[in-house]
């Protein structure tokens, strides 16, 4: 085991911190960089709560090592709206009750931010994300709202 210096640009800010070579990107973000919005629900890449964008592409940050992210660009849930106005996707999730406990939500918010404007299907967005609270009903209503539908029957 050794410690290496990892430099990433996360949500537009360059951050340099040490990381063990076995530290996952998720733990590095949470512990090293104090960005606790990224949640670890399973640690095996099954639930999608920890999804972040690595050089613009969604990855499960529990399956990436911090050292693999060295020199790369990362977007996390905290960067989606920053401290400012929520995105349409975030507003739709709120309005359509697309979350309950909110533990899985950060990964989904990042995924929806990535999907915005790309025209992917509802199934594409939801693939790889587990939600135990909503039955996906409110999330689907939010996605329908975003794609121009009414947002559902509620």
């Amino acid at each position, binding site marked *: 085991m050794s410690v290496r210096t990892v430099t990433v640009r996360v949500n537009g800010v360059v951050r340099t911190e040490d990381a*063990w070579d*076995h530290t996952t990107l998720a733990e590095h973000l*949470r512990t090293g960089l104090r*960005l*606790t*919005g*990224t*949640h*670890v*629900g*399973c*640690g*095996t890449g*099954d*639930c999608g*709560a920890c999804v972040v964008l690595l050089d613009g592409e969604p990855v499960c940050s529990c399956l990436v090592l911090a050292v693999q992210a060295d020199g790369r660009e990362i977007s*996390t*849930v*905290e960067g*989606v*709206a920053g401290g400012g106005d*929520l995105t349409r996707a*975030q507003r739709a*999730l*709120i*309005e359509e*009750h697309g*979350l*309950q*406990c*909110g*533990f*899985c*939500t*950060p990964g989904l*918010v990042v995924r929806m931010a990535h999907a915005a404007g790309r025209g992917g299907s*509802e*199934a594409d967005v*939801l*693939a790889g*994300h*587990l*939600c*135990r*609270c*909503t*039955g*996906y*009903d*409110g*999330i*689907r209503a939010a996605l329908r709202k975003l794609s121009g539908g009414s947002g559902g029957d*509620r």
Partner: protein
Amino acid sequence: MSGAHQHIGRPVPPRHHDRLVRGHGRFLADLRAAGVLYATLVRSPLAHARIVGFDASAARSDPRCALVLGPDDLAERTAPIPTAWRLPGQPEDRIPIAAHTARYAGQPLGIVVADTPTAAEDLAEAVRLDLDPLPPAATLADALAEHAPPIVPGAAGNEAGSIRLGSPEEDVAAAFARAELVVEREFTLPRVNPSPLEPRGVLAEYDPGTGLLTVHAGSQSPHSMRQDLCAVLGMRADRVRVIAPDIGGSFGSKVVLYPDEAMVCAAAVALGAAVRWVESRAENFDGAYQGRGQRTTARLAVGHEGRFLAFDAHILADLGAYATQAGSGPHQVTALTLQGPYHVDAAAATVTGVYTTRVPTGAYRGYGMQEAAFIRERLIEEAARELDVPALELRLRNLIRPEELPHTTHTGLTYDSGDYGAALRRAATLAERPPPSDPPWVRRGTAVVAAVEITAFAPSALLETFGIAWSGWEGVRLRINHDGTVTAYSGVIAVGQGIETSLAQIAAEGLGVPLDWVRVELGDTDTAPHSDLSAQASRALTLAGGALLIAARRLADRMRTLAAGFLGTDPDRVTQRIGSRADPSSPDAAFHGTDGARITWREVAHRGYRGWGNRKDTDRIRLEEAVDFDPPQITFAHGAHAAEVTVDVGTGRVTVTGYWAVHDSGVLVNPLIAHGQIAGGIAQGLGQALSEEARADAEGVPVTRSFREYAVPAAQDVPEDLVIEHTCTPSTAIPGGFKGLGEGGTLLPPAAVTCAVAAAVPEIAHTLTSLPLTPSRVRAALRAAGITAEGGLR
């Protein structure tokens, strides 16, 4: 003469959503703690073994190690956890923390604390366990076999006691003697993992200077966790504080103190430091209490013209390695609720608890009621098939009608209000649609099923009658602050269900003020009113909400009386007018006298706090009301679900192609939240119907330890067009007419889906008694009946 606001019934998006979509939640693992140490549990790899040695010398000599507690250390530092709900004859009434025998794989035997999480994991692996294997008894059959190894030391066998609930024996016998048809089946409801997306976790901090233990925990019931911690650690209640941060789902799996959580707290006390433990997903599969786990022989007697005469059941309850605080509770609720919404001359059930070498079972959303619904509705569907009458007609013929309520069941439950037939007929109507033309290897079927749901499990006297060492009442404190804003305190907990929003709506309604004046404060035993059961048993909104409505109306009256004093008039000549966007000090938030005089809400509050005004010595000063509400009885919600499924007779795959739910939870405070609760409950129920089963190997070691082996529903497993409707029969027991709905969605999907499969493939209907209906299980039943994709029919 309150403000004109209508908060109750408005679909307001929950107030906690904004910070959660920004990534600003504060879950257990997110909390900062200076100098925190990290814990890893040492767990048994074997399902049953005598612990000969726990050698931690290597771990203890490592400079990264802060503390190791093994079984002997724990025996010195902890007492067993008391239980609250026991079976007659239950041989063990305390939950061992310091174990000298491992009774399930994953059982915590000791704890290692180190300066980093990685070090704690490494050092836990360095502990050398010397285990003397004992034969496992991982199934009910194995545990009840003649030469089964006794799991509780000193007990005669593995039976954990027994209870018979319901009608007298002679009534049951007489009803079955009159029967024209008796349907009897054996049902198996497997163990399932509640699987909240956030696993369990504890951050315990002990300050030796003050002697205070502060515990942050993802607990659904901080007060009962505190009580149990006091018993385990021998500490005074005023020295233990439990705080629930944001909780990433719970579903019943976080309602009681677990031994591993107690070990973390014991370690913090021993060290005089802060210790954090965050459960891994595999640990959650191994060690969090599982739901269900029941094998039941049940029969239905049907008389002339399809009239139901009696239900009778014998429930074998898989309690696991020890009986948890509520022990056989869920299974007793199965017995209590077997009768459901139907008339019968007799209904009774026996519950026999059985110890097995698996992780204990406990509360899971639906709590015995889902099992009862599955057993009952399957028996009815089978009776309809044997009688060759439509199942819907048979159900409608036997339902308790609204004009017959209140109605007391054979297990002594008094249904307060509802219209069971309306829900059933509506669900059936919703599900009517022309069948599409399916390929020859696809069969399609629909079924409609019904249930009555215990919500607001209370009053306290009822729990006392059942010998359950908990209370059922719920208290609130509601305060108008000196600036006119409002703070509500309740002992119920937010677990994502949005209760803080619903409670704010109720308080705002009762006070006649805008919603955003009200803050709801939950989760801290130092400030929250006592609550034993807190956010479980579909009770938070009904009981805390009912109490809050009473408190808000009292405070509203006091404000008007104060205002009248300042305006020099009578309270009944004062009108409260508050604009929907007003703040407490604005002119459009005021009390008006008849002469044009007015005083703002804030001014009334502020003067009230000074103790000014024409006050009698006996008048209360502080603008705060504490209300304890213990309802006269349980209030019963109800619902009906319809499922349409297709069965691919080649693969055995069952697909839910349509799902319709009609619920009655009385007056809905927030329809958006209500819809979300039902939808989420349906998804969990569909998971149980089709894919979820916590399995172990022949040695009793869990094999479902990740979301790959254990399939919780993904988006594609839940129909896109769930239809959820609500009817409204107000509760007669709860102020505001509220009924609970946290569990309702979960009760019926296994019954609805299984009955729909039976309708699709009647040739295998009699075999559809075990869940989940995985492709391999359905395919085996199809093959046994001679049905193949090629042959279509036999």
